[in-house]
């Protein structure tokens, strides 16, 4: 495949970056962010995978140069785009299509009213990504989110956040659901109408489930289903195979041939036999296999999720367009927070660039209680980092990690202050969340000569 690009200025003075094949735009030294206003991808016979790869290269969220810019594809690529359709603004037959320019103009005009993030803004926080998605939606005039059930999305439905990435980690999905709640709480969005209640995997929240019939005794799916035959004249009922006789049906009891259904015999039922344990039964038990986390559940274990249509409120649109408000809001909620992977990589970064005498202390807490779920853990995380000045905070499962930078030879007074702070933290959480306690698990400190890899291993070793 020939890969190339060109920049053309159209009749309205907009600069169009025309992409053929795979072009790593961010790496092109001769093209800067200001050199183009929009992107058009031509059909060069690329496959779905090649196309997805190119769309990642020019992602409105991750690419620095293409940030939130309008993106159009050749019409013939429509059927190769599949689940990435939400991040494409439209299709056009040729690079100088008039309708395409009109649509691009609208987007560029509304982008002008929206404060964008500084290009160097930290990418590590999921909330930034989430806010980028909101900005993207507002710039496209998508104020309401008609959520639809679609198998292409792992969760089974589109959402307030656009499923640009198929491979969200389970943590990230929880966070995004949480952000949705925060948006509702802040009055930035509201539920419009109830759509559907779907069932998802209780473990990984995905909807790609297989429903399987299984033996009620041993749960095996190796079943044989066979009709039973009732021979009227002698009242014999047994499986069809016991009647098999040289291609004909002959009664095993009275040895007469069965000729006419309804006259000589009928089939009153079907019986299953398990080939593993030989158990016989009329009704199989359903089991549900999650294709993403490979776990098996009972249908009653599945998590029911109510799906609503959402809508940005006018305050929401205002606040999300303005960067200051947005940053303030998001800082209030999530400053200092990173997801667990970034948390670890930041610790690694710190160890490379640390000032003499300074080490990282990590406090690990466990959220305990009968009804602990991800949302509660995240609320506690949010409370903790609002209250104290940890350098970084993260969580995984029921464990919360708080990292602090401090001199390796801490004074007793400083120690005491830290301990008091922790005690107070535990008390406040106990008070605020009935039935939930925060238990201090342990306290980790990198030893003077400990390699960073061993230290990280120590942090991530928990159960």
């Amino acid at each position, binding site marked *: 495949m020939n890969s190339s690009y060109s920049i053309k200025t159209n009749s309205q003075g907009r600069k169009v970056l025309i992409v053929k094949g795979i072009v790593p735009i961010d790496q092109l030294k001769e093209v800067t962010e200001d050199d183009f206003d929009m992107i058009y991808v031509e059909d060069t016979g690329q496959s779905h995978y090649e196309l997805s790869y190119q769309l990642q290269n020019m992602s409105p969220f991750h690419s620095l140069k293409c940030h939130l810019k309008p993106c159009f594809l050749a019409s013939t690529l429509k059927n190769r785009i599949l689940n990435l359709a939400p991040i494409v603004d439209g299709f056009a037959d040729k690079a100088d299509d008039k309708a395409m320019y009109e649509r691009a103009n609208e987007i560029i005009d509304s982008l002008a009213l929206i404060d964008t993030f500084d290009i160097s803004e930290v990418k590590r926080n999921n909330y930034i990504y989430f806010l980028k998605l909101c900005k993207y939606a507002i710039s496209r005039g998508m104020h309401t989110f008609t959520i639809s059930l679609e198998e292409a999305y792992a969760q089974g439905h589109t959402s307030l956040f656009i499923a640009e990435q198929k491979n969200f980690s389970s943590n990230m999905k929880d966070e995004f659901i949480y952000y949705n709640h925060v948006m509702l709480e802040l009055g930035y969005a509201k539920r419009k109408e109830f759509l559907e209640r779907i069932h998802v995997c209780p473990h990984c929240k995905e909807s790609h489930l297989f429903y399987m019939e299984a033996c*009620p005794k041993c749960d095996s799916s190796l079943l044989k289903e066979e009709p039973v035959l*009732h021979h009227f004249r002698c009242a014999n009922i047994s499986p069809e195979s016991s009647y098999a006789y040289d291609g004909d049906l002959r009664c095993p009891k009275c040895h007469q041939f069965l000729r006419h259904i309804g006259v000589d015999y009928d089939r009153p039922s079907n019986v299953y036999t398990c080939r593993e344990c030989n158990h016989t039964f009329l009704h199989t038990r359903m089991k549900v296999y999650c294709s993403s986390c490979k776990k098996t559940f009972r249908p009653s274990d599945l998590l029911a999720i109510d799906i609503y249509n959402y809508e940005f409120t006018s305050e929401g649109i205002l606040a999300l367009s303005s960067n200051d408000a947005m940053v303030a809001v998001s800082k209030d909620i999530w400053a200092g927070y990173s997801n667990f992977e970034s948390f670890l990589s930041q610790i690694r970064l710190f160890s490379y660039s640390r000032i003499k005498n300074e080490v990282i202390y990590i406090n690990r807490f466990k959220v305990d209680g009968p009804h602990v779920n991800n949302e509660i853990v995240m609320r506690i995380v949010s409370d903790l980092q609002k209250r104290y000045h940890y350098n970084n905070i993260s969580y995984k499962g029921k464990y919360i990690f708080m990292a602090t930078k401090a001199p390796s030879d801490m004074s007793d007074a400083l120690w005491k202050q830290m301990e008091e702070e922790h005690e107070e933290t535990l008390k406040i959480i106990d008070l605020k969340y009935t039935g939930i306690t925060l238990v201090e698990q342990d306290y980790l400190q990198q030893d003077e000569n400990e390699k960073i890899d061993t230290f990280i291993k120590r942090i991530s070793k928990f159960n």
Partner: protein
Amino acid sequence: MLDFFYDIIDGVIACFTRNLSWNALLHTYWFLFIIEFPRYYFLELVIAIWYKITYQQRKKAMEVAKMKLYIENPLITILAPGKNEGKHIYKLVKSLNEQTYRNYEIIIVDDGSDDATPMICRDLEKAGLIDLYLRSDIRGGKASAANYGVHYAKGKYIIHLDADSSLDRDAIEKILIPFYYDPKIKAVGGTVKVRNAEDSLCTSMQALEYLKTIQVGRMVTNELGIYHIISGAFGAFEKEKLIQIGMWDIGPGLDGDITQKIRKSGDKVYFAEDAICMTNVPTTWHALFKQRQRWSKSLIRFRLRKHFDILMPHKHFSILNWISNMENLLYDCFFNFMWFFYILTLIFMHTDRLMEIFIVGWMIRYCFSVVAFGVIMMISERASEEKKLVPYLFFSTFYTGYFLRITRLLAHTKELFFFSSYKDPWNPKKTSDLAQIEGI
């Protein structure tokens, strides 16, 4: 009017004073003295006394058999086929949980129920209270439902139960013991008693009747080696034997039929008078009448027609089987017709003394029934409870002497001349039609 009654009373008194002679009594009540008394009262009394005398000896042998049973501890299958029996199943399962014999599986066969039975049974199956729930979506008849269950049974012995019956705590154990008492025994019948005896006069009379004809009557036929009917409500069969004789054929009266088939094949059947099962009986005379019509028709259909060969010399001819069927046919059918003509002659020959004859006849029967009740008290395991049925002896002449006889007479006539059992909705039409063509 009063004179009329005085006349009768005078007549009755005269019967015992002036005219009292055995000859005269015999002349009028020959049917009672010659046909009924020897078979139903005298013979039963003698056998019951014999049974009591040999009790200790038999008890020892049964103790040994019980030990053998528990050493082998075979898995048995409890099979309850039926239609719309869902409401009874939970009670049945609970009563089975109380059994002294523990190694059993429960199979419920639902013969095309159109009520909540499937839901109830699926729940019980899920809860592990029943081992297998089988269902025919289309009703196939009682025999086919039972055969369906046998095909999936894993037990060495199969205990056939009616879903609405319940068992004494040791009933399963007691019905299994005879298999270890004599290896030639391939099927054992249990004693069926009436649970709803206090519901109405009709059920009280049936309670009395069951005690006499089942617990005592079958004990007697068993002792004589001519026991011929294992109740569908509570019977045990060796599975292998059951399959060998082709299991159940189309009913009604399939319990008698299957007993015949086992006897014919040369094996023994046995009656366990101490294995007690309780069942609900019809509470109205009309329902009872219909039930007995069905039972009685099967006598003609099976004993006289299908198994007529037992009465003829043939390869597996057995004198006991011959006597068993002959006795059955004579007493339940032939003598019944005879009774009809006996009554006719009484009516036409003694038209003026009818009331008198009737009252004296009642007195004689009452005396007989007191003897019979004495026998029941000798045999029954819960004699003290059943004592309260004594007042009902007063009605037993009307019940056994007239009601049951007339019911039987009608049924036998219908079946003999009109094959009416093949039209009984108790079986699905498709099976009855074929059965009639095949003569089974």
